[in-house]
């Protein structure tokens, strides 16, 4: 039986990092195939190769037995691969029907054939079970409805392959169930579906086979879901019994509270967040993609507003109005997970990127004069401590490898002398050596008495490095666990905390709560 999609040995590297290493996956008609993997495992790279955004460095991709090579997303669409991404690709002011038929608007006597558009769209809307007025502008629809429209649109392209990327990320469990019915129906009609998700219970309930990626490689290729349990999936995703890269800490925290959140709610839909961070402690914040961790970090640092509850720093109540405020008054820093978009400025020099937090301090009092010499003198020791590899500090940050860029992103907070540092997914897409170096750095900082909040969905990382862990799901803190530094132990504990709560959610169907 020839598969609808067959990828063998796909590899893709970006500057300094091997995102995919000899990865294979195959899709058969009439199946729902799960693609699993943690952040940074290579899932999104593989998806982008399938949808024509990236061209693989090596490997073969076959569609229906014939070798293909996509140069653009349009190529992929023309070849029959339709994707429903997390971002919506619909025209907001247009109606449902028009969005569905956008690539083939029928014309009669020079004018748009409205009747034909409606007829065309209704077929697909019925297939999906979307019972709405086809003329409704899509900007009035809910997220779940939008998703269904996108699926209808994808199907109307008569694609052989339907790729769904985190389809249940922003919809209620009730809407998710409806979606699954639709997918099962499509399966019976012979559509090949690639289902990308973090939610294991969904995968177990819905999918036929599973392919798992870890660190850019397959740990499972097209394995039938029968007989596989949740723990097996977790083990495939996060590995087992790996050597701890860092020994357990010798220094314990001295107990002083650096940062405390009580009953905090934010403009980003967080509710009732309680969190305590001590000096000299590394607190891990674990959660799945989209559960609100980065937003919480941004709320702490003042980029998102806190709407309720109390935030206190060093035991005293704090009103943090902006990031500049957080840095200057409370010495809080945030290393963004979006390294290239928020962590550093690619078009500026390394020295500029590092010194940005201390410019006002470096400038002389009266003349406001800020000399390059002083700037470089301040930056150099930090750059050396972090071993940032570059011919000079004047090199543009965009030219560095991912690992070095991350070091630059961290360096500016070190230079500013932050006492509380939030690090958001600091080692995603970074080479192993730099990863280890960053872990060591985090340890050192904590030993120095700094308070670190480590946000990560990399289980081995968080288990190795953190002292304690807070677990987040759906914009709430759902549990705190002490770290025993043993993988099987911790991964089971954490997953139980997350999925245990998620199961409870599913039981209260129609609760209407959107993640």
């Amino acid at each position: 039986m020839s598969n609808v999609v067959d990828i063998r040995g796909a590899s893709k590297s970006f500057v300094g990092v091997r995102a995919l290493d000899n990865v294979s996956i195959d899709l058969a008609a009439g199946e729902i195939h799960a693609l699993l993997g943690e952040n940074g495992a290579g899932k999104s790279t593989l998806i982008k190769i399938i949808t024509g955004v990236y061209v693989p460095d090596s490997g073969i991709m076959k569609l229906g037995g014939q070798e293909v090579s996509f140069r653009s997303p349009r190529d992929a669409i023309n070849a029959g691969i339709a994707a429903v991404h997390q971002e919506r690709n619909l025209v907001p002011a247009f109606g449902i029907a028009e969005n569905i038929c956008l690539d083939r608007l029928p014309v009669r006597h020079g004018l748009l054939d409205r009747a034909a558009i409606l007829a065309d769209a209704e077929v697909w809307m019925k297939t999906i079970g979307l019972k709405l007025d086809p003329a409704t502008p899509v900007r009035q629809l809910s997220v779940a409805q939008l998703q269904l429209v996108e699926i209808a649109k994808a199907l109307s392209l008569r694609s052989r392959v339907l790729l769904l990327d985190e389809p249940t990320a922003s919809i209620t469990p009730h809407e998710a169930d409806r979606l699954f019915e639709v997918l099962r129906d499509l399966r019976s009609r012979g559509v090949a579906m690639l289902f990308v998700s973090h939610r294991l219970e969904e995968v177990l309930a819905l999918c036929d086979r599973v392919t798992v990626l870890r660190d850019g490689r397959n740990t499972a290729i097209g394995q039938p879901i029968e007989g596989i349990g949740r723990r097996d999936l977790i083990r495939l995703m996060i590995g087992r019994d790996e050597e701890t890269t860092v020994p357990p800490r010798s220094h314990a925290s001295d107990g002083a509270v650096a940062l405390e959140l009580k009953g905090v709610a934010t403009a980003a839909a967080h509710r009732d967040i309680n969190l305590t961070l001590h000096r000299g402690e590394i607190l891990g914040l674990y959660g799945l993609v989209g559960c609100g961790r980065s937003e919480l970090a941004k709320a702490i640092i003042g980029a998102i507003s806190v709407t309720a509850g109390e935030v206190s720093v060093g035991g005293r109540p704090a009103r943090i109005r902006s990031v500049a405020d957080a840095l200057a008054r409370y010495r809080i820093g945030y290393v963004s997970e979006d390294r290239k978009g928020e962590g550093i400025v690619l078009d500026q020099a390394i020295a500029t990127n590092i010194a940005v937090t201390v410019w006002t301090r470096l400038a002389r009092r009266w003349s406001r004069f800020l000399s390059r010499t002083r700037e470089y003198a301040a930056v150099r020791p930090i750059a050396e401590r972090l071993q940032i590899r570059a011919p000079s500090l004047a090199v543009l940050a965009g030219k560095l490898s991912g690992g070095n860029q991350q070091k630059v992103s961290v360096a500016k907070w070190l230079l500013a002398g932050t006492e509380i540092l939030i690090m958001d997914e600091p080692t995603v897409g970074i080479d192993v050596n730099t990863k280890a170096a960053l872990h060591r750095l985090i340890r050192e900082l904590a030993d120095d008495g700094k308070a670190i909040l480590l946000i990560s969905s990399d289980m081995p990382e968080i288990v190795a490095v953190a002292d304690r862990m807070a677990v987040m799901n759906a914009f709430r803190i759902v549990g705190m666990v002490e770290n025993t530094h043993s993988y099987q132990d911790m991964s089971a504990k954490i997953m139980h905390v997350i999925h245990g709560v998620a199961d409870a959610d599913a039981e209260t169907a129609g609760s209407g709560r959107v993640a």
Partner: protein
Amino acid sequence: MTSIDAAPSRRRYLPAWATRPEIGLVVIIVLMIAIFSVTAPGFLSPFNTFAVARDLAVAIVLGYAMMVVLAVGGMNLAVGSIGVCVAMATAGLQAAGVPAILSVACGVAAGAALGGVNGVLVVRTGLSSFMITLATMSIYFGAMLLLSGAEAIRDLDPGFIYFGRARIAGVLPVMFLVAVVVAIALTYFYRATALGRQTLFTGANPKAAELSGVPVVRTVVLAHALSGLLAGVAAIMLTARTGAGVPSMAGQIGRDWLLPAFIAPVLGGSALAGGSVAIVGTFLGATLVAVLGSGLRMVNIGDFWIELFLGIILAIAVIADRARALWSSGDRGQ
């Protein structure tokens, strides 16, 4: 000590420094001066040099007025309107007997205030500076018309008018020194002050700047205020040269100043999207335009055709810059 994956090096036909836009501008300017000095008698005369330098001074400062707001990633369509407001205010004060220096100080402050309003509106509403300054260019111009009754003010302080005529060594207008001082001040600002560095950082990536603790709001507002201030300075210089405050000096709602204000920074290599400034480049860009204009005038190509030329030059300059950007990043994979 390097593990940077640099782009594969292209075979260079020219050394790196020679491809900088400033060098190209200097070459073109020198060429033009050479050609015009031959084809247009009197081009290099002290009289003409003085006249050109005076207009050039205004154009340079106007170019800087746009450059400082491009730096932070925005634009200021209201430069002309703010300019004419300041001009009329300054002239009006002088006509009312206020000493020249005070009237200039007030005028400049007014320019900064009007620019500051733009900045605050941009930050508060989250709208693009294009939209905001499109609206304020009209509002400011209307306000000016209302207050001045659209009548020119000729009753200026004699000292002020003298400043407009003063020259050094018979050739160099004192006004030109003002432009040079502004250039030096801006260089200092962007290279060696925290606020200037923060401004460029914000222009390059506002989100990253905010998350790095840069006070983005303050930076944007101050950039717009600086733009208004410089537009005011340019207007004051022009008023001194003309000897009168003229409501139509920048055209209907100030639109006549849009081209000169943009063309200097663009020719000079300032990034339109923000993040970098070319102070010398802007200076040279304005010089190129002034030399070209003067030369064409002297060979009897009407004033009117010059605008056509400039439009074409602007188009060529942006296209060439775009081509250069694509060429240099073309081999950076993916």
